């Protein structure tokens, strides 16, 4: 009895994978406190690290809405942990578009999934939105709230309105790369073990 609509089972799966995604992201996010360049390197790290669970996720649900709901959850979690709501629209739009792309390949076509994941990864740039939109006051805020000048300078050297386009592209490209690697890991482990077909 397979239906096209999402069922309670799918909601639970979405919840579980969002939790895993968040834990992975949190673990890497902590690295950002070491050096501002690592904050910029999120665009490389997160798409690669998140690819394994996401590729498994794609093969577990295969229904429209899975990524949309996940993106809404991520937006909520980001907001609650103090990352602001400026990025929320981007996160959700990225989620919906990624969902549509994956649906175009009926969640089976490997190429479409790779593209879909790349697009989905562009939400990571939402982390930088507070830095961009309010660049001047944000810099002042950073300094006032105790960040060192060095940190702020480095941060702005890496992330500004000129580089943001590059960062988005990075996200997407590394999303593609991550998707390939993730796919191969899923194949190496989960398909071989018979967990997914």
């Amino acid at each position, binding site marked *: 009895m397979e239906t096209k609509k*999402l*069922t*309670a*089972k799918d*909601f*639970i*799966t*979405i*919840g*579980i994978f*969002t*939790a*895993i995604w*968040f*834990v*992975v992201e949190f673990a890497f996010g902590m690295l950002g*406190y070491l050096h501002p360049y690592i904050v910029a390197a999120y665009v490389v790290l997160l798409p690669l*690290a998140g690819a*394994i*669970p996401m590729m*498994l996720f794609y093969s*577990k649900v295969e229904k429209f*809405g899975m990524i949309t*709901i*996940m993106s*809404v*959850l991520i937006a*909520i*979690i980001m*907001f*609650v*942990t*103090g*990352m*602001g*709501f400026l990025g929320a629209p981007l996160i959700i739009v990225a989620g919906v578009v990624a969902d549509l792309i994956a649906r175009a390949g009926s969640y089976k076509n490997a190429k479409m999934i790779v593209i879909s994941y790349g697009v989905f990864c562009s939400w990571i740039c939402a982390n930088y939105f*507070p830095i961009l939109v309010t660049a001047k006051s944000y810099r*002042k*805020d*950073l*300094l*006032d*709230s*105790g*960040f*060192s*000048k*060095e*940190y702020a300078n480095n941060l702005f050297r890496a992330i500004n309105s000129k580089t943001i386009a590059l960062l988005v592209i990075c996200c997407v490209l590394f999303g593609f790369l991550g998707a390939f690697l993730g796919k191969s*890991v899923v194949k190496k*482990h*989960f398909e071989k*073990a018979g*967990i997914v077909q």
Partner: protein
Amino acid sequence: MKRNLDPRAKLYMLFVVSIIVMLSATTPLLWCIRTMITMIPIMLLIKEKRYAWALRFFVLYALAMILTFFVLGSGSTGMWKAFLTGYCGIILQFSPAFITAWYVIRTMKVDEFMSAMQKMHVPDSITISLAVVMRFFPTIKEEYGCIRAAMKMRGSSLAGGNVWKMMEYRLIPLLFSCVSIGDELSAAAITRGLGGKVKRTSVVVLEMKSIDYLLMLFLTGAAAVFVFVKYWV
């Protein structure tokens, strides 16, 4: 029955604190408001008899405050000072939201959360998924603990410094057990009627009491003053 805050008031608190956290404080008055708002969840933790955590959060916050304002002056240079300043900044910046989130997640029951979300007309898809996210953090912690123990027994040479391998060895067993737990969890939940067409009821009676309104009013006021002072004064 012990009377707790209404879950909606807690969610509202989370919402307001998250907004304030986004805007950083620049003047002493703003710092005052921020600190006041940080003290609310800490006080609530004390009320819940979670003294150890309340004290830990308080000391953390106070320490960061003291270091920032009295020990490290602005324009401090040098590697260690820069680091320390950075960390204190981060703690001051994010800890209000973190403490509040910790308080809300630890004290809100899944049942309360689900009926509050239902009352606010949030669709089931979001409610169920979010409830699972909340329930799953301790599970991930447990599973990861077991995996770490297993890795320790295999010796630290397991990955040999290979970052990708290190991640693989941690993530793959974690995913395997999370997937199987998830399967069993949803089977058990569905056989007990989750996701049916009937409207879910709840034994939790949600009722906004004066204390809830008071808290919300106070938070709204604080946020309003904060925004006003920051942008218009």
